[in-house]
Protein backbone atom coordinates (compact mmCIF):
# COMPACT_ATOMS: atom_id res chain seq x y z
CA UNK A 1 0.00 0.00 0.00
CA UNK A 2 2.66 2.48 1.08
CA UNK A 3 4.78 1.55 -1.85
CA UNK A 4 1.90 2.08 -4.26
CA UNK A 5 1.23 5.46 -2.75
CA UNK A 6 4.76 6.60 -3.26
CA UNK A 7 4.66 5.80 -6.89
CA UNK A 8 1.25 7.31 -7.64
CA UNK A 9 1.29 10.52 -5.64
CA UNK A 10 4.02 13.10 -5.07
CA UNK A 11 5.84 12.62 -1.77
CA UNK A 12 4.85 16.06 -0.50
CA UNK A 13 1.11 15.27 -0.72
CA UNK A 14 1.44 12.75 2.10
CA UNK A 15 -0.12 9.30 2.16
CA UNK A 16 -3.54 10.49 3.43
CA UNK A 17 -4.28 13.07 0.77
CA UNK A 18 -7.22 11.92 -1.37
CA UNK A 19 -6.62 12.58 -5.02
CA UNK A 20 -9.56 13.26 -7.30
CA UNK A 21 -12.87 11.44 -6.88
CA UNK A 22 -11.27 8.22 -5.59
CA UNK A 23 -12.31 7.70 -1.98
CA UNK A 24 -9.52 6.52 0.26
CA UNK A 25 -10.26 3.25 1.96
CA UNK A 26 -9.02 2.26 5.36
CA UNK A 27 -9.43 -1.13 6.95
CA UNK A 28 -11.74 0.06 9.68
CA UNK A 29 -14.07 1.94 7.46
CA UNK A 30 -16.49 -0.55 5.98
CA UNK A 31 -17.56 -0.35 2.42
CA UNK A 32 -21.12 0.98 2.81
CA UNK A 33 -22.26 -0.53 -0.41
CA UNK A 34 -24.43 -3.57 0.27
CA UNK A 35 -24.50 -3.22 4.03
CA UNK A 36 -28.08 -2.06 4.03
CA UNK A 37 -29.13 -4.82 1.65
CA UNK A 38 -27.39 -7.46 3.75
CA UNK A 39 -29.05 -6.23 6.93
CA UNK A 40 -32.45 -6.04 5.29
CA UNK A 41 -32.16 -9.51 3.84
CA UNK A 42 -30.91 -11.15 7.01
CA UNK A 43 -33.67 -9.37 8.93
CA UNK A 44 -36.30 -10.65 6.52
CA UNK A 45 -34.94 -14.18 6.61
CA UNK A 46 -34.84 -14.13 10.38
CA UNK A 47 -38.40 -12.77 10.57
CA UNK A 48 -39.65 -15.47 8.21
CA UNK A 49 -37.94 -18.15 10.29
CA UNK A 50 -39.39 -16.84 13.52
CA UNK A 51 -42.86 -16.50 11.96
CA UNK A 52 -42.85 -20.16 10.97
CA UNK A 53 -41.82 -21.25 14.46
CA UNK A 54 -44.46 -19.04 16.08
CA UNK A 55 -47.09 -20.40 13.72
CA UNK A 56 -46.10 -23.94 14.53
CA UNK A 57 -46.17 -23.18 18.23
CA UNK A 58 -49.65 -21.68 17.92
CA UNK A 59 -50.97 -24.70 16.05
CA UNK A 60 -49.52 -27.01 18.67
CA UNK A 61 -50.87 -24.81 21.46
CA UNK A 62 -54.34 -24.61 19.94
CA UNK A 63 -54.46 -28.35 19.39
CA UNK A 64 -53.28 -29.18 22.89
CA UNK A 65 -55.44 -26.68 24.71
CA UNK A 66 -58.63 -27.60 22.87
CA UNK A 67 -58.02 -31.29 23.21
CA UNK A 68 -57.75 -31.23 26.99
CA UNK A 69 -61.30 -32.47 27.46
CA UNK A 70 -60.56 -35.57 25.51
CA UNK A 71 -58.07 -36.68 28.13
CA UNK A 72 -59.74 -35.40 31.29
CA UNK A 73 -63.39 -35.22 32.24
CA UNK A 74 -64.79 -33.77 35.47
CA UNK A 75 -66.82 -36.87 36.35
CA UNK A 76 -64.34 -39.58 35.49
CA UNK A 77 -60.95 -37.89 35.96
CA UNK A 78 -58.18 -38.91 33.57
CA UNK A 79 -59.57 -40.81 30.62
CA UNK A 80 -56.36 -41.32 28.68
CA UNK A 81 -57.02 -45.04 28.30
CA UNK A 82 -60.39 -44.39 26.79
CA UNK A 83 -58.94 -41.86 24.39
CA UNK A 84 -56.15 -44.17 23.33
CA UNK A 85 -58.67 -46.89 22.68
CA UNK A 86 -60.37 -44.51 20.31
CA UNK A 87 -57.23 -43.08 18.75
CA UNK A 88 -55.07 -46.15 18.23
CA UNK A 89 -57.19 -47.82 15.54
CA UNK A 90 -57.28 -44.52 13.67
CA UNK A 91 -53.52 -44.19 13.92
CA UNK A 92 -53.28 -47.74 12.63
CA UNK A 93 -55.60 -47.01 9.70
CA UNK A 94 -53.72 -43.84 8.81
CA UNK A 95 -50.40 -45.63 8.84
CA UNK A 96 -51.70 -48.58 6.81
CA UNK A 97 -53.11 -46.26 4.16
CA UNK A 98 -49.85 -44.28 4.01
CA UNK A 99 -47.69 -47.37 3.79
CA UNK A 100 -49.77 -48.70 0.91
CA UNK A 101 -49.60 -45.33 -0.82
CA UNK A 102 -45.85 -44.97 -0.38
CA UNK A 103 -45.13 -48.60 -1.19
CA UNK A 104 -46.92 -48.25 -4.49
CA UNK A 105 -46.00 -44.68 -5.38
CA UNK A 106 -42.32 -44.41 -4.42
CA UNK A 107 -40.90 -47.12 -6.72
CA UNK A 108 -43.10 -46.06 -9.63
CA UNK A 109 -42.26 -42.39 -9.09
CA UNK A 110 -38.52 -43.05 -8.94
CA UNK A 111 -38.76 -45.22 -12.04
CA UNK A 112 -40.69 -42.58 -13.96
CA UNK A 113 -38.30 -39.86 -12.80
CA UNK A 114 -35.31 -41.92 -13.94
CA UNK A 115 -36.96 -42.61 -17.26
CA UNK A 116 -37.53 -38.91 -17.77
CA UNK A 117 -34.06 -37.86 -16.68
CA UNK A 118 -31.86 -40.59 -18.12
CA UNK A 119 -33.66 -42.77 -20.63
CA UNK A 120 -36.33 -40.95 -22.60
CA UNK A 121 -35.39 -38.89 -25.65
CA UNK A 122 -35.39 -35.18 -24.68
CA UNK A 123 -38.61 -34.28 -26.42
CA UNK A 124 -40.59 -37.16 -24.90
CA UNK A 125 -39.18 -36.47 -21.46
CA UNK A 126 -40.33 -32.87 -21.59
CA UNK A 127 -43.92 -33.81 -22.38
CA UNK A 128 -44.01 -36.61 -19.82
CA UNK A 129 -42.71 -34.21 -17.19
CA UNK A 130 -45.41 -31.76 -18.16
CA UNK A 131 -48.15 -34.36 -17.79
CA UNK A 132 -46.80 -35.39 -14.39
CA UNK A 133 -46.84 -31.81 -13.16
CA UNK A 134 -50.44 -31.49 -14.38
CA UNK A 135 -51.37 -34.55 -12.31
CA UNK A 136 -50.17 -32.72 -9.23
CA UNK A 137 -52.57 -29.88 -9.91
CA UNK A 138 -55.72 -32.04 -9.89
CA UNK A 139 -57.78 -31.29 -6.74
CA UNK A 140 -58.04 -34.15 -4.30
CA UNK A 141 -61.82 -34.24 -4.46
CA UNK A 142 -61.52 -35.25 -8.11
CA UNK A 143 -59.24 -38.13 -7.15
CA UNK A 144 -61.75 -39.06 -4.46
CA UNK A 145 -64.63 -39.09 -6.91
CA UNK A 146 -62.60 -41.14 -9.36
CA UNK A 147 -61.64 -43.61 -6.64
CA UNK A 148 -65.19 -43.97 -5.38
CA UNK A 149 -67.07 -44.29 -8.63
CA UNK A 150 -64.52 -45.90 -10.91
CA UNK A 151 -61.62 -47.55 -9.12
CA UNK A 152 -63.60 -49.09 -6.24
CA UNK A 153 -66.07 -51.05 -8.43
CA UNK A 154 -63.21 -52.10 -10.68
CA UNK A 155 -61.34 -53.53 -7.70
CA UNK A 156 -64.21 -55.74 -6.50
CA UNK A 157 -63.34 -58.76 -8.67
CA UNK A 158 -59.67 -58.32 -7.83
CA UNK A 159 -60.41 -58.45 -4.13
CA UNK A 160 -62.58 -61.51 -4.62
CA UNK A 161 -59.78 -63.22 -6.49
CA UNK A 162 -57.21 -62.24 -3.84
CA UNK A 163 -59.49 -63.62 -1.15
CA UNK A 164 -60.02 -66.93 -2.94
CA UNK A 165 -56.38 -67.51 -3.81
CA UNK A 166 -54.44 -65.80 -1.04
CA UNK A 167 -57.05 -65.84 1.71
CA UNK A 168 -54.67 -67.65 4.06
CA UNK A 169 -52.54 -64.48 4.16
CA UNK A 170 -53.83 -62.13 6.91
CA UNK A 171 -53.79 -59.10 4.60
CA UNK A 172 -56.22 -60.81 2.25
CA UNK A 173 -58.31 -62.62 4.82
CA UNK A 174 -61.83 -61.57 5.73
CA UNK A 175 -64.85 -60.91 3.57
CA UNK A 176 -64.00 -59.12 0.36
CA UNK A 177 -65.87 -55.86 0.20
CA UNK A 178 -68.86 -55.75 -2.17
CA UNK A 179 -68.32 -52.10 -3.01
CA UNK A 180 -64.54 -52.18 -3.23
CA UNK A 181 -64.31 -49.15 -0.96
CA UNK A 182 -61.55 -50.57 1.21
CA UNK A 183 -58.33 -49.27 2.71
CA UNK A 184 -56.42 -50.79 -0.21
CA UNK A 185 -58.49 -48.82 -2.72
CA UNK A 186 -57.96 -45.69 -0.64
CA UNK A 187 -54.23 -46.45 -0.53
CA UNK A 188 -54.12 -46.82 -4.32
CA UNK A 189 -55.91 -43.49 -4.78
CA UNK A 190 -53.46 -41.89 -2.38
CA UNK A 191 -50.58 -43.44 -4.31
CA UNK A 192 -51.81 -41.87 -7.53
CA UNK A 193 -52.15 -38.56 -5.73
CA UNK A 194 -48.64 -38.49 -4.32
CA UNK A 195 -46.98 -39.91 -7.43
CA UNK A 196 -46.48 -36.52 -9.13
CA UNK A 197 -44.79 -34.79 -6.22
CA UNK A 198 -42.33 -37.63 -5.63
CA UNK A 199 -41.67 -37.85 -9.36
CA UNK A 200 -41.06 -34.12 -9.75
CA UNK A 201 -38.70 -33.85 -6.82
CA UNK A 202 -36.76 -36.97 -7.84
CA UNK A 203 -36.52 -35.93 -11.48
CA UNK A 204 -35.24 -32.52 -10.49
CA UNK A 205 -32.49 -34.05 -8.40
CA UNK A 206 -31.63 -36.79 -10.94
CA UNK A 207 -31.10 -34.15 -13.61
CA UNK A 208 -28.65 -32.34 -11.36
CA UNK A 209 -26.33 -35.31 -10.97
CA UNK A 210 -22.90 -33.98 -11.94
CA UNK A 211 -21.93 -35.11 -15.47
CA UNK A 212 -18.47 -35.54 -14.04
CA UNK A 213 -19.51 -38.45 -11.85
CA UNK A 214 -21.72 -40.03 -14.46
CA UNK A 215 -18.80 -40.00 -16.88
CA UNK A 216 -16.49 -41.38 -14.20
CA UNK A 217 -18.74 -44.41 -13.88
CA UNK A 218 -19.21 -44.84 -17.62
CA UNK A 219 -15.48 -44.56 -18.27
CA UNK A 220 -14.91 -47.42 -15.83
CA UNK A 221 -17.12 -49.58 -18.02
CA UNK A 222 -20.47 -49.15 -16.31
CA UNK A 223 -23.68 -49.87 -18.17
CA UNK A 224 -26.29 -47.18 -17.95
CA UNK A 225 -28.04 -48.88 -15.04
CA UNK A 226 -24.76 -49.42 -13.21
CA UNK A 227 -23.91 -45.77 -13.77
CA UNK A 228 -27.24 -44.84 -12.23
CA UNK A 229 -26.57 -47.02 -9.19
CA UNK A 230 -23.03 -45.71 -8.85
CA UNK A 231 -23.41 -42.01 -9.56
CA UNK A 232 -27.05 -40.97 -9.69
CA UNK A 233 -28.68 -42.69 -6.71
CA UNK A 234 -26.00 -41.85 -4.14
CA UNK A 235 -26.11 -38.24 -5.27
CA UNK A 236 -29.90 -38.13 -5.23
CA UNK A 237 -30.49 -40.04 -2.00
CA UNK A 238 -31.31 -37.06 0.18
CA UNK A 239 -33.48 -35.56 -2.53
CA UNK A 240 -35.43 -38.77 -3.04
CA UNK A 241 -36.06 -38.98 0.68
CA UNK A 242 -37.28 -35.38 0.71
CA UNK A 243 -39.62 -36.16 -2.17
CA UNK A 244 -40.96 -39.23 -0.41
CA UNK A 245 -41.47 -37.21 2.76
CA UNK A 246 -43.45 -34.60 0.87
CA UNK A 247 -45.56 -37.39 -0.60
CA UNK A 248 -45.96 -39.02 2.79
CA UNK A 249 -47.02 -35.73 4.31
CA UNK A 250 -49.73 -35.45 1.73
CA UNK A 251 -50.82 -39.06 2.18
CA UNK A 252 -50.97 -38.76 5.98
CA UNK A 253 -53.03 -35.60 5.83
CA UNK A 254 -55.22 -36.37 2.85
CA UNK A 255 -58.84 -35.93 3.87
CA UNK A 256 -61.19 -35.60 0.97
CA UNK A 257 -60.07 -38.49 -1.19
CA UNK A 258 -60.06 -40.93 1.71
CA UNK A 259 -63.39 -39.69 3.06
CA UNK A 260 -64.97 -40.31 -0.33
CA UNK A 261 -63.31 -43.61 -1.16
CA UNK A 262 -63.16 -45.46 2.13
CA UNK A 263 -66.23 -46.80 3.83
CA UNK A 264 -64.57 -46.93 7.19
CA UNK A 265 -64.88 -49.17 10.19
CA UNK A 266 -62.93 -50.86 12.92
CA UNK A 267 -59.21 -51.51 12.56
CA UNK A 268 -58.52 -54.71 10.68
CA UNK A 269 -55.48 -56.26 9.09
CA UNK A 270 -57.50 -57.20 6.04
CA UNK A 271 -56.95 -54.83 3.18
CA UNK A 272 -59.82 -56.15 1.10
CA UNK A 273 -62.78 -55.88 3.44
CA UNK A 274 -64.49 -52.78 4.73
CA UNK A 275 -62.91 -51.40 7.85
CA UNK A 276 -60.14 -49.09 8.98
CA UNK A 277 -60.37 -45.36 9.03
CA UNK A 278 -57.77 -42.63 8.76
CA UNK A 279 -57.45 -39.68 11.14
CA UNK A 280 -58.12 -36.86 8.66
CA UNK A 281 -61.17 -38.60 7.20
CA UNK A 282 -62.50 -39.36 10.68
CA UNK A 283 -62.18 -35.72 11.66
CA UNK A 284 -63.76 -34.44 8.46
CA UNK A 285 -66.68 -36.84 8.63
CA UNK A 286 -67.51 -36.22 12.29
CA UNK A 287 -66.55 -32.64 12.96
CA UNK A 288 -69.76 -31.07 11.62
CA UNK A 289 -71.90 -33.07 14.07
CA UNK A 290 -69.71 -32.51 17.10
CA UNK A 291 -71.09 -29.63 19.14
CA UNK A 292 -68.76 -26.71 19.78
CA UNK A 293 -66.91 -27.20 23.04
CA UNK A 294 -68.22 -30.74 23.43
CA UNK A 295 -66.12 -33.66 24.52
CA UNK A 296 -66.54 -35.18 21.06
CA UNK A 297 -65.04 -32.11 19.45
CA UNK A 298 -62.14 -32.17 21.88
CA UNK A 299 -61.59 -35.79 20.99
CA UNK A 300 -61.46 -35.01 17.29
CA UNK A 301 -59.03 -32.18 17.86
CA UNK A 302 -56.94 -34.48 20.02
CA UNK A 303 -56.56 -37.02 17.22
CA UNK A 304 -55.62 -34.07 15.02
CA UNK A 305 -52.82 -33.41 17.49
CA UNK A 306 -51.81 -37.05 17.27
CA UNK A 307 -51.59 -36.75 13.48
CA UNK A 308 -49.50 -33.61 13.89
CA UNK A 309 -47.11 -35.50 16.14
CA UNK A 310 -46.89 -38.46 13.77
CA UNK A 311 -45.97 -36.11 10.94
CA UNK A 312 -43.32 -34.40 13.05
CA UNK A 313 -41.80 -37.71 14.10
CA UNK A 314 -41.75 -39.01 10.53
CA UNK A 315 -40.03 -35.85 9.36
CA UNK A 316 -37.48 -36.03 12.12
CA UNK A 317 -36.67 -39.62 11.21
CA UNK A 318 -36.26 -38.55 7.60
CA UNK A 319 -33.91 -35.73 8.61
CA UNK A 320 -31.92 -38.16 10.63
CA UNK A 321 -31.64 -40.58 7.72
CA UNK A 322 -30.51 -37.77 5.47
CA UNK A 323 -27.95 -36.40 7.90
CA UNK A 324 -26.48 -39.77 8.74
CA UNK A 325 -23.34 -40.24 6.69
CA UNK A 326 -23.23 -36.56 5.95
CA UNK A 327 -19.50 -36.90 5.44
CA UNK A 328 -20.22 -39.01 2.40
CA UNK A 329 -23.04 -36.91 1.02
CA UNK A 330 -20.87 -35.22 -1.59
CA UNK A 331 -21.81 -31.82 -0.23
CA UNK A 332 -18.19 -30.98 0.48
Amino acid at each position, binding site marked *: MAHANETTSPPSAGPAAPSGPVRKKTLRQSDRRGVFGDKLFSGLAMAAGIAILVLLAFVALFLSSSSGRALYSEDEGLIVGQFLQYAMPLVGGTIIASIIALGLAAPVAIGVALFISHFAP*PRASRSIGYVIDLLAAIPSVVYGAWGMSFLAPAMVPVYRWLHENLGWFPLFAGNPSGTGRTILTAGIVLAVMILPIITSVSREIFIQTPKLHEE*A*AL*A*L*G*ATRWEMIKMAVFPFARAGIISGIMLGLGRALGETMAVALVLSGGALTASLISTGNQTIPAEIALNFPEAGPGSERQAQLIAIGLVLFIITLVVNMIARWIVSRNKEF*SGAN
Partner: protein
Amino acid sequence: MSKRINAIDLNVYYGDFLAVEGVNIDIEPRSVTAFIGPSGCGKTTFLRTLNRMHEVLPGARVEGQLLLDDDNIYDTAVDPVTVRSMVGMVFQRPNPFPTMSIRDNVLAGYKLNGTRLSRSQSDQVVEEALKGANLWNEVKDRLDKPGSGLSGGQQQRLCIARTIAVKPDVILMDEPCSALDPISTLAIEDLINELKDTYTVVIVTHNMQQAARVSEKTAFFNIAGTGKPGKLIEYDETTKIFSNPSKKDTENYVSGRFG
Protein backbone atom coordinates in the same frame (compact mmCIF):
# COMPACT_ATOMS: atom_id res chain seq x y z
CA MET B 1 -1.80 -56.09 -21.21
CA SER B 2 -0.88 -53.05 -23.18
CA LYS B 3 -2.44 -52.53 -26.61
CA ARG B 4 -1.64 -50.72 -29.83
CA ILE B 5 -4.05 -48.05 -31.02
CA ASN B 6 -4.53 -47.48 -34.71
CA ALA B 7 -6.96 -44.92 -36.11
CA ILE B 8 -7.80 -45.16 -39.79
CA ASP B 9 -9.49 -42.22 -41.56
CA LEU B 10 -11.40 -41.30 -38.47
CA ASN B 11 -13.99 -38.50 -38.68
CA VAL B 12 -15.92 -37.32 -35.66
CA TYR B 13 -19.19 -35.43 -35.92
CA TYR B 14 -21.40 -33.61 -33.44
CA GLY B 15 -24.70 -33.82 -35.29
CA ASP B 16 -23.87 -32.34 -38.70
CA PHE B 17 -20.77 -30.54 -37.48
CA LEU B 18 -17.57 -32.26 -38.50
CA ALA B 19 -15.35 -31.67 -35.46
CA VAL B 20 -12.35 -33.82 -36.34
CA GLU B 21 -11.45 -34.96 -39.85
CA GLY B 22 -9.39 -37.75 -41.30
CA VAL B 23 -7.18 -38.77 -38.42
CA ASN B 24 -4.67 -41.53 -39.11
CA ILE B 25 -2.45 -42.34 -36.19
CA ASP B 26 -0.59 -45.37 -34.92
CA ILE B 27 0.16 -45.40 -31.19
CA GLU B 28 2.66 -47.91 -29.87
CA PRO B 29 1.90 -50.07 -26.86
CA ARG B 30 3.85 -49.21 -23.69
CA SER B 31 4.44 -45.62 -24.66
CA VAL B 32 3.30 -42.16 -23.74
CA THR B 33 1.78 -40.07 -26.51
CA ALA B 34 0.89 -36.42 -26.03
CA PHE B 35 -1.84 -34.59 -27.94
CA ILE B 36 -1.20 -30.87 -28.23
CA GLY B 37 -2.90 -28.10 -30.16
CA PRO B 38 -4.89 -24.89 -29.73
CA SER B 39 -8.18 -24.83 -27.89
CA GLY B 40 -11.11 -26.20 -29.88
CA CYS B 41 -9.03 -28.23 -32.31
CA GLY B 42 -10.64 -31.47 -31.22
CA LYS B 43 -8.13 -33.08 -28.86
CA THR B 44 -10.78 -33.99 -26.29
CA THR B 45 -13.17 -35.04 -29.02
CA PHE B 46 -10.65 -37.38 -30.60
CA LEU B 47 -9.45 -38.72 -27.25
CA ARG B 48 -13.00 -39.64 -26.33
CA THR B 49 -13.41 -41.64 -29.49
CA LEU B 50 -10.59 -43.91 -28.31
CA ASN B 51 -12.89 -45.46 -25.70
CA ARG B 52 -16.24 -44.51 -27.23
CA MET B 53 -16.92 -42.01 -24.46
CA HIS B 54 -18.03 -39.53 -27.12
CA GLU B 55 -21.19 -41.62 -27.45
CA VAL B 56 -22.30 -40.21 -24.11
CA LEU B 57 -22.54 -36.76 -25.72
CA PRO B 58 -25.73 -36.04 -27.65
CA GLY B 59 -25.34 -36.29 -31.41
CA ALA B 60 -21.71 -37.39 -31.41
CA ARG B 61 -20.76 -40.08 -33.92
CA VAL B 62 -17.75 -41.48 -35.67
CA GLU B 63 -16.82 -42.62 -39.19
CA GLY B 64 -13.80 -44.74 -39.92
CA GLN B 65 -12.00 -47.41 -37.96
CA LEU B 66 -10.26 -47.54 -34.66
CA LEU B 67 -8.22 -50.65 -34.05
CA LEU B 68 -7.22 -51.79 -30.61
CA ASP B 69 -4.49 -54.28 -31.54
CA ASP B 70 -6.44 -55.89 -34.38
CA ASP B 71 -10.04 -55.34 -33.31
CA ASN B 72 -12.10 -52.45 -34.59
CA ILE B 73 -13.83 -51.01 -31.54
CA TYR B 74 -16.54 -49.61 -33.82
CA ASP B 75 -17.47 -53.03 -35.09
CA THR B 76 -21.23 -53.55 -34.66
CA ALA B 77 -20.64 -56.57 -32.46
CA VAL B 78 -18.54 -54.60 -29.99
CA ASP B 79 -20.14 -53.34 -26.78
CA PRO B 80 -18.89 -49.88 -25.73
CA VAL B 81 -19.02 -51.04 -22.11
CA THR B 82 -16.36 -53.65 -22.87
CA VAL B 83 -14.23 -51.10 -24.70
CA ARG B 84 -14.33 -48.76 -21.72
CA SER B 85 -13.35 -51.46 -19.29
CA MET B 86 -10.21 -52.00 -21.40
CA VAL B 87 -9.50 -48.34 -22.13
CA GLY B 88 -9.57 -46.31 -18.93
CA MET B 89 -9.94 -42.55 -18.77
CA VAL B 90 -8.80 -39.81 -16.40
CA PHE B 91 -10.63 -36.52 -16.70
CA GLN B 92 -9.60 -32.91 -16.56
CA ARG B 93 -11.32 -32.29 -13.26
CA PRO B 94 -10.77 -34.89 -10.53
CA ASN B 95 -14.00 -36.83 -10.14
CA PRO B 96 -13.84 -39.40 -7.36
CA PHE B 97 -17.27 -40.66 -6.33
CA PRO B 98 -18.13 -38.36 -3.44
CA THR B 99 -20.34 -40.84 -1.63
CA MET B 100 -17.69 -43.55 -1.60
CA SER B 101 -14.72 -44.01 0.66
CA ILE B 102 -11.21 -43.89 -0.78
CA ARG B 103 -11.13 -47.66 -0.69
CA ASP B 104 -14.48 -48.06 -2.45
CA ASN B 105 -13.42 -45.56 -5.07
CA VAL B 106 -10.45 -47.71 -5.95
CA LEU B 107 -12.62 -50.81 -6.01
CA ALA B 108 -15.41 -49.21 -8.05
CA GLY B 109 -14.28 -50.86 -11.28
CA TYR B 110 -14.26 -54.29 -9.66
CA LYS B 111 -17.75 -53.77 -8.35
CA LEU B 112 -18.78 -53.17 -11.95
CA ASN B 113 -17.19 -56.14 -13.63
CA GLY B 114 -18.73 -58.38 -11.00
CA THR B 115 -15.51 -59.91 -9.69
CA ARG B 116 -16.02 -61.11 -6.16
CA LEU B 117 -12.95 -60.28 -4.12
CA SER B 118 -12.20 -61.60 -0.68
CA ARG B 119 -11.28 -59.02 1.92
CA SER B 120 -7.59 -59.79 1.60
CA GLN B 121 -7.70 -59.73 -2.19
CA SER B 122 -9.43 -56.39 -2.23
CA ASP B 123 -6.97 -55.04 0.34
CA GLN B 124 -4.22 -56.07 -2.01
CA VAL B 125 -5.88 -54.48 -5.04
CA VAL B 126 -6.39 -51.23 -3.13
CA GLU B 127 -2.82 -51.14 -1.90
CA GLU B 128 -1.34 -51.96 -5.30
CA ALA B 129 -3.45 -49.40 -7.13
CA LEU B 130 -2.79 -46.65 -4.61
CA LYS B 131 0.92 -47.42 -4.62
CA GLY B 132 0.83 -47.40 -8.40
CA ALA B 133 -0.70 -43.94 -8.23
CA ASN B 134 1.86 -42.72 -5.65
CA LEU B 135 -0.92 -42.08 -3.18
CA TRP B 136 -0.60 -44.96 -0.75
CA ASN B 137 1.53 -43.24 1.87
CA GLU B 138 -0.75 -40.25 2.04
CA VAL B 139 -4.01 -42.14 2.48
CA LYS B 140 -3.17 -45.52 3.98
CA ASP B 141 -4.47 -44.43 7.38
CA ARG B 142 -7.77 -43.11 6.13
CA LEU B 143 -8.96 -45.53 3.50
CA ASP B 144 -12.46 -45.43 4.90
CA LYS B 145 -12.77 -41.67 4.69
CA PRO B 146 -14.58 -40.11 1.73
CA GLY B 147 -12.55 -39.54 -1.42
CA SER B 148 -13.88 -36.01 -1.69
CA GLY B 149 -11.97 -35.08 1.47
CA LEU B 150 -8.63 -35.23 -0.33
CA SER B 151 -6.80 -32.33 -1.94
CA GLY B 152 -7.27 -31.77 -5.66
CA GLY B 153 -3.98 -33.41 -6.57
CA GLN B 154 -4.67 -36.35 -4.30
CA GLN B 155 -8.14 -36.71 -5.78
CA GLN B 156 -6.65 -36.80 -9.26
CA ARG B 157 -4.20 -39.51 -8.20
CA LEU B 158 -7.12 -41.36 -6.61
CA CYS B 159 -8.85 -41.23 -9.99
CA ILE B 160 -5.73 -42.64 -11.59
CA ALA B 161 -5.64 -45.38 -8.96
CA ARG B 162 -9.27 -46.16 -9.72
CA THR B 163 -8.42 -46.40 -13.40
CA ILE B 164 -5.36 -48.63 -13.02
CA ALA B 165 -6.99 -50.85 -10.38
CA VAL B 166 -8.87 -52.74 -13.08
CA LYS B 167 -5.69 -53.14 -15.15
CA PRO B 168 -6.82 -51.59 -18.42
CA ASP B 169 -4.81 -51.87 -21.63
CA VAL B 170 -4.83 -48.18 -22.37
CA ILE B 171 -5.09 -45.10 -20.16
CA LEU B 172 -6.41 -41.86 -21.63
CA MET B 173 -5.83 -38.60 -19.77
CA ASP B 174 -7.49 -35.34 -20.71
CA GLU B 175 -5.44 -32.46 -19.26
CA PRO B 176 -5.06 -34.36 -15.97
CA CYS B 177 -2.93 -31.64 -14.37
CA SER B 178 -4.75 -28.51 -15.45
CA ALA B 179 -6.47 -28.14 -12.08
CA LEU B 180 -3.37 -28.93 -10.03
CA ASP B 181 -0.46 -27.11 -8.44
CA PRO B 182 3.12 -27.65 -9.72
CA ILE B 183 4.00 -30.20 -7.01
CA SER B 184 0.98 -32.37 -7.69
CA THR B 185 1.65 -31.96 -11.39
CA LEU B 186 5.17 -33.29 -10.94
CA ALA B 187 3.84 -36.20 -8.90
CA ILE B 188 1.48 -37.10 -11.72
CA GLU B 189 4.15 -36.69 -14.38
CA ASP B 190 6.40 -39.08 -12.46
CA LEU B 191 3.50 -41.44 -12.27
CA ILE B 192 2.90 -41.26 -16.02
CA ASN B 193 6.54 -42.16 -16.54
CA GLU B 194 6.03 -45.30 -14.49
CA LEU B 195 2.71 -46.16 -16.07
CA LYS B 196 4.20 -46.43 -19.53
CA ASP B 197 6.05 -49.58 -18.49
CA THR B 198 2.72 -51.33 -18.28
CA TYR B 199 0.17 -49.34 -20.24
CA THR B 200 -0.36 -47.41 -23.42
CA VAL B 201 -0.82 -43.85 -22.19
CA VAL B 202 -2.34 -41.01 -24.19
CA ILE B 203 -2.35 -37.58 -22.62
CA VAL B 204 -3.89 -34.30 -23.79
CA THR B 205 -2.03 -31.27 -22.49
CA HIS B 206 -1.78 -27.54 -23.02
CA ASN B 207 1.54 -27.46 -21.27
CA MET B 208 4.29 -28.02 -23.81
CA GLN B 209 6.98 -28.55 -21.21
CA GLN B 210 4.79 -31.27 -19.84
CA ALA B 211 4.41 -32.87 -23.25
CA ALA B 212 8.18 -32.67 -23.68
CA ARG B 213 8.80 -34.15 -20.22
CA VAL B 214 6.45 -37.11 -20.29
CA SER B 215 5.87 -38.21 -23.84
CA GLU B 216 7.84 -40.17 -26.41
CA LYS B 217 5.68 -39.14 -29.29
CA THR B 218 3.60 -36.04 -29.81
CA ALA B 219 0.62 -35.43 -32.05
CA PHE B 220 -0.12 -31.85 -33.04
CA PHE B 221 -3.74 -31.04 -33.91
CA ASN B 222 -4.82 -27.79 -35.49
CA ILE B 223 -7.87 -26.08 -36.82
CA ALA B 224 -7.99 -23.84 -39.87
CA GLY B 225 -10.64 -21.52 -38.43
CA THR B 226 -13.87 -21.57 -36.45
CA GLY B 227 -16.39 -24.00 -37.89
CA LYS B 228 -13.65 -25.90 -39.71
CA PRO B 229 -12.78 -29.43 -38.65
CA GLY B 230 -9.73 -30.11 -36.51
CA LYS B 231 -6.99 -32.16 -38.15
CA LEU B 232 -3.95 -34.09 -37.11
CA ILE B 233 -1.15 -31.98 -38.55
CA GLU B 234 1.96 -33.79 -37.46
CA TYR B 235 2.76 -36.86 -35.43
CA ASP B 236 6.35 -37.69 -34.60
CA GLU B 237 8.96 -38.23 -31.92
CA THR B 238 8.46 -35.61 -29.22
CA THR B 239 12.06 -34.38 -29.53
CA LYS B 240 11.59 -33.87 -33.24
CA ILE B 241 8.24 -32.05 -32.82
CA PHE B 242 9.77 -29.61 -30.39
CA SER B 243 13.15 -29.08 -32.01
CA ASN B 244 12.73 -29.65 -35.70
CA PRO B 245 9.11 -30.11 -36.81
CA SER B 246 8.52 -30.72 -40.49
CA LYS B 247 5.37 -28.57 -40.72
CA LYS B 248 5.29 -24.79 -40.50
CA ASP B 249 2.09 -24.82 -38.37
CA THR B 250 3.69 -27.08 -35.82
CA GLU B 251 6.76 -24.91 -35.59
CA ASN B 252 4.64 -21.79 -35.07
CA TYR B 253 2.63 -23.47 -32.37
CA VAL B 254 5.48 -25.00 -30.38
CA SER B 255 7.47 -21.79 -30.56
CA GLY B 256 4.52 -19.79 -29.31
CA ARG B 257 3.70 -18.04 -32.60
CA PHE B 258 0.20 -18.65 -33.86
CA GLY B 259 -1.33 -18.40 -37.31
